[in-house]
């Protein structure tokens, strides 16, 4: 199964209190978004991708355009709203892989695994979760959480959703991958997350 991907890079990154836009924040010297773009490019089952930007991240948008990447601009209201808007703008009315720009340890191999799991599940959506305790033990921040089968998890931001049903999200039966894998564990929301994630990346990657 091949799916298109959307890289979400239009957030404000307000939790970081940064001088630069979050997607451009250097992680081990390379901008966060470059790590993610490399991962998406190397995924065998991703047919192509767009970078979703907004007025919140003009420099990110300029960089992507300079590099010849396809960009979709959204209103920058929030992760979910921007996602719906991007899916509709690009008319991706089929399964779409959603990837946030703040997962520097992500790999193409991992994304292929997610796509396989989605295909097997037969559902209209799939979300990748990380146990809250795993992030807490590593002293990583836990900001967005979601419930799956009565248990709360940290949201990794990696999802697959059937674009044809993007408007009824919430009512969609969602499959889940719950994992401690470093690829989605190292989600960067704060300066402290960045320091810890760089350390873990040097050790385990």
């Amino acid at each position, binding site marked *: 199964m091949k799916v298109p991907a959307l890289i979400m890079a239009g957030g404000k990154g307000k939790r970081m209190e940064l001088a630069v836009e979050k997607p451009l924040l*250097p992680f*081990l*010297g*390379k901008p966060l978004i470059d*790590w993610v773009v490399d*991962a998406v490019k*190397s995924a065998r089952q991703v047919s192509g991708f767009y970078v979703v930007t907004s007025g919140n991240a003009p420099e990110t948008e300029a960089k992507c355009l300079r590099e010849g990447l396809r960009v979709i601009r959204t209103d920058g209201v929030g992760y979910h709203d921007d996602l719906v808007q991007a899916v509709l703008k690009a008319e991706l009315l089929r399964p779409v892989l959603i990837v946030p720009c703040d997962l*520097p*340890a*992500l*790999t*193409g*191999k991992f994304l292929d695994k997610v796509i396989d799991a989605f295909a097997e599940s037969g559902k209209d959506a799939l979300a990748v979760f990380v146990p809250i305790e795993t992030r807490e*033990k*590593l002293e990583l921040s836990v900001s967005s959480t979601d419930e799956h089968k009565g248990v709360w998890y940290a949201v990794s931001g990696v999802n697959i959703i059937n674009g044809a049903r993007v408007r009824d999200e919430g009512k969609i039966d969602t499959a889940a991958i719950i994992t*401690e*894998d*470093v*690829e989605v*564990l190292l989600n960067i929301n704060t300066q402290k997350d960045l320091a810890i994630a*760089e350390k*873990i*990346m*040097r*050790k*385990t*990657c």
Partner: protein
Amino acid sequence: MSPVKAIKTFRDLLSFFTIIPLGKTEDFVLTTAEYIYLFPVVGAFIGLLGAAYYYASRFLLSYLLGFVSLFVWTPSGFLLMLLPAVMTLAFLLVLSGLQHFDGLVDLGNAVGLGNLEERRAAAHKWTVSYKGAVLAIIVEFVGIVGLFFLDVGSAFGAIIVAEVAAKLAMVTIAVVGKPTHKGLGSIFLENAKRTRSLVAYVLAGLVAVLLLGLTGIGVILVSVTLGVLMGQVGKSVFGGVSGDVMGATNEVVRSAVLIFVAGVLLL
């Protein structure tokens, strides 16, 4: 390479391997990966610091122990062999910010755990299991024993060459190994697979032979053999070579070389 670039590169490499606050460029980790063939040069510098520390501690201890034994009997000969050995090993560990040591602990933690996912997850937890602790202590103990038996004259070359050989083994494992992860690790490993990595072997060989003569050739063989072997260990424990496995290799090879050189000189 211009002199300014060379100095910056060396500073980045030292920042990667030590806690010396030299200032560094933002992408010093990627620079380190790019210049992996210069690892033995950094090793020689670190070894030189280690050797200096060894002699300084020995010198100070000889006075201190001499003074103490004026009043009470102390096994000063024995202590003069043991204490500098322990202190120098500790110095090298602290100088590296314990990062390689930490890799050794993580490797020990992961050995014997059920499946690959569990073993990989064990590497990014901050906990230490008894297996990790035991492995790390044994490996460092071997190094201390090696240093203990080295005489004052040969310790200089041995400490430097051990550090050079340790860094060379990191190059070897990166040359032969497959990454566990297509991110940072693969950047190191891909850089190592270029022909310029031969420079690392030439430089390490030169330093080893210059300081230890024929024994130096033996040291290089030990380094290469252990580098390849640790690649196999990494593959079976973590499914490939990660930063932890490279760090563990540094520790294993340093200790092995110290005991090897001590053994050759004693025989």
